[in-house]
C-alpha cells in the first residue's frame, strides 16, 4: 500500500507485483504514474499530472517515482471562459 494525496484527497493505492519493483532513483519508490492512473480508471485519458508542484511529463509515467505522502494533481480540460 502506498498513501498519496490525489487532488486534495487521500488515496491508498495497492502495489502490484511487476516491473515497478525495479526502483532505482528513490530508495522506497515503488509505484509509477501509469499504475496510479490505471488504478483510478484514467488510463488513456487526456490528463496532465503534477507531483509535489512539478509537472510530470508523460515520458516519465513509467518511472517508479511515487513515494508515500506525494501530493498529486491530475487535471483535464473542461468548459470555461
Amino acid at each position: 500500500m502506498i498513501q498519496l494525496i490525489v487532488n486534495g484527497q487521500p488515496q491508498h493505492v495497492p502495489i502490484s507485483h511487476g516491473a515497478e519493483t525495479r526502483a532505482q532513483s528513490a530508495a522506497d519508490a515503488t509505484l509509477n504514474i501509469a499504475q496510479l492512473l490505471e488504478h483510478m480508471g484514467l488510463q488513456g485519458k487526456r490528463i496532465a499530472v503534477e507531483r509535489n508542484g512539478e509537472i510530470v511529463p508523460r515520458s516519465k509515467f513509467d518511472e517508479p517515482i511515487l513515494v508515500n505522502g506525494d501530493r498529486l494533481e491530475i487535471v483535464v480540460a473542461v468548459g470555461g471562459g
Partner: protein
Amino acid sequence: MADKLMDNLVIAGKTYSSRLLVGTGKYKDFDETRAAVDASGAEIVTVAIRRTNLGQNPDEPNLLDVLPPSQYTLLPNTAGCYTLEDAVRTLRLARELLDGHTLVKLEVLGDPRTLYPNMVETLKAAEILIKEGFQVMVYTSDDPIAAKQLEEIGCVAVMPLASLIGSGMGILNPWNLQIIIENATVPVIVDAGVGTASDAAIAMELGCDGVLMNTAIAAAQNPVLMASAMKKAVEAGREAYLAGRMAKKLYSASPSSPVAGTIGQLKT
C-alpha cells in the same frame, strides 16, 4: 473588398480570420457547446483546467474530443486562480495536457464577488510565464497604464474588461478602451462584459482587434442563435471601424435626398 479579405487578426505571429473568441463554459452539454462554437465561427476557444473528479465515470466524454486541438486553437485559461502560483502551475499543466501548446490566457483574480483582476499578481505571473516560453494573452483591468506594462513585458495580446465577468453590462468605459487601443502595438481584445450583439459591435467600432465572450452566448435563451448574432456583430463592427464612420454633426441635419427639384406647391 480586397481590404476586407486581407483583414486578419494576428496573435503571436499566427493569423486568424475570425475576430471573435469564445469560451466553452456554462453550456447545457457538449452538443450545445460545439454547436455554439461552430455558429460563432470562432477559431480560438478558451478552456479551463480542473482536477479530474475522483470517482467520476471514466467513460464520460472529454471536452478535447468535442473540440479537438487539431481543429481549434485552444486557449487554456487560469479562471478561478487568485494567486500567481496557482495561475502559473495551472498553465504549466495546460501546456503538458496540450502537448507543449504555449498560447494561454492568464487571469489572476482579486475578489470572488467582482472577479476583478489583481493586476500586481497578474503582472508578476505574466513575467514568469513569458520567461518560461508561454505566449500570454492577458486579462486586465481597463487601466491604460497596466495594459501598457503588460504589453511591454511581452504579452502577445492585452484583454481589458468591458465590464465585470459574466455581468453582461456591456462597454462601460469606452474612453479607457480607446486609450488602451491607441497606445497598444499588440492586439487589444475586449474580454468580459459583453451582453448582446450591439456590445460586441461597439467594441469593434472602437477599434478593438477582437472580442472574447462566454456568458453572453451561453446564457442566451438560444445560445446557438446568439453565437451567430455575435459573429455578425463582430464582423459588422470591424467593417464599420475600417470603413470610418461619418462625422457627427450635432444639431445640424443634412438631407440625404436632393434639395432641388421637389415638386411645386399647389398654392403660391
